[in-house]
């Protein structure tokens, strides 16, 4: 198997949503047969590591095989949320692309051009 590392962005798309200081990141693979691979790559631990500099206190992962995706719920990552944050993006709307910047192992059976 190749050990080449690419960003998750090549294989998945994502959208962020916020309520209070809780962020959800819904992430979906483009190719349904990458779903098992996504589950391997996107563990709660790896997501927590990626957002550790934001003070995340908990990551919960909800696999959604019916959608070929995962819903990730991150607590306290918004540093006060849309109300209390000093960040330009208090909603955390841009953070879907921070998730997609994660380096991943290339899926074993990918057919790419």
């Amino acid at each position, binding site marked *: 198997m190749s050990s080449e590392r690419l960003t998750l962005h090549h294989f998945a798309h994502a959208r962020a949503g916020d309520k209070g200081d809780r962020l959800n990141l*819904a992430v979906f693979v483009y190719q349904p047969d990458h779903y098992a691979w996504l589950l391997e790559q996107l563990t709660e631990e790896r997501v927590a590591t990626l957002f550790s500099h934001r003070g995340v206190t908990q990551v919960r992962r909800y696999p*959604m095989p019916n959608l070929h995706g995962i819903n990730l719920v991150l607590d306290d990552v918004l540093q006060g949320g849309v109300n209390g944050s000093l960040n330009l993006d208090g909603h955390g709307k841009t*953070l879907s692309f921070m998730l997609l910047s994660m380096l991943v192992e290339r899926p074993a059976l990918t057919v790419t051009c």
Partner: protein
Amino acid sequence: MTVVIGCGAGFSGDRTDAAVPLVETLLTYDTPCALMFETLGERTLAAAQLRRIEDPQSGDEPLLEAFLSPVLGDCLSANITVLGNFGAANPEAAQRRVAALARTSRFPEVKLGVVSGDDVRDRLETLEWSAWEGERRELPSGSSVVAANVYLGAESLVEALQRQAQVVITGRVADPALALAPLCHHHNWALDDWDRLAAGALAGHLIECGAQVTGGYFADPAFKDVPDLAELGYPIVEVERSGRLVVTKPPGTGGMVTEQTVREQLLYEIHDPSVYITPDVVLDLTHVEIRQVGRDRVVVSGVRGRPRPETLKTTISFLDGFQGEAEISYAGPNALARARLAREILQQRLTKRCPPDLRSRFDLIGVSSVFDGDSEAWRGASAGAVDDVRLRLAVEHEQREVVELATQELLALYCCGPAGGGGVRRYHKPRLKTASYLVSREQVHPKVTIYQGDSIYE
């Protein structure tokens, strides 16, 4: 029978011409239709309440005429029900404005349903509260509270429709209720038919952010291309009595409805997908199937419903200190070094001049900002040639003077900072924060008033 709902706005700042092609399309259906506008974000209502405190006649959606006037006459002519939470902090003010608009559209006899009872600001001390989800915050003190509103369900909106309202004006309601209400009304769904209610609430959830399900907030060039974003079609959902639903959009408009756009919106702002709580029903999304059945036509099926919760979410907004922002730009040779020097100077000045409880953060825009934490622990793009860097200071403190003193230190960089700084901007504002709690259903008393034009009808 199918009931068709269009959504003409997904937030208060949305495009105001989006409803026109929606209504043109709704006019082609030979079946009951409704048009909803969702214009009330978490803090929008608090901002509206602040406006009402200054002017008791205001506090409703400022863009109400801009959203409604292009389509209200056509909707009233064709029996297309209009529902909107553009009442915000003052549904009666919105009712007067809609009545005036209807008069100019030659519908002076229009029946308007106003839903109130969501505003519990005067009952904060007497209601019994419990914590919402993970939040642990103490109830804010009375004097700082700007707004306190319960998320009402579809029940009162259904009542307004049963009492012949042609336009339903609300303050805070759960966003999906704006679609669920006309579905319950026309399909005669019982308010404990949980699977049907779940399908109706899901229909509302999918369209309540407007174009976010039709290709808006989706484009990523070369990865996810979306045609004609400048002319995005806003969503239409066709819902059968069984609960089967199709998401689509007006023909000839930009954007697209695909399995991908629908699934991104399906989980938008969702936490546990097996327990999506609305005031009307608890949805289980874990068995939802999404299937493309035609161009810009996607079927969503398999949602399951469980009994509605006994508690209702209430969001309280309160004033808490002041926020200041200030920015300055450095460009050209050695720009990043000069911006970093400016930041260092500012840090020293704030330490010397401001109290230690001043919260602050610095961004080097063009280098690192939105991904980073307040402590700048990340600085993902620390290397590389950068030739246009904007240093941003953001501060928070309970006293306005402290905040102004801090941002003035950035302004002073004009003369005291590194070479070539320019383009300073400063902003100050009171901080409006929100916290959410739960209140038991029986403590909340929604009320429906039907007006005919400007007068109370019944």
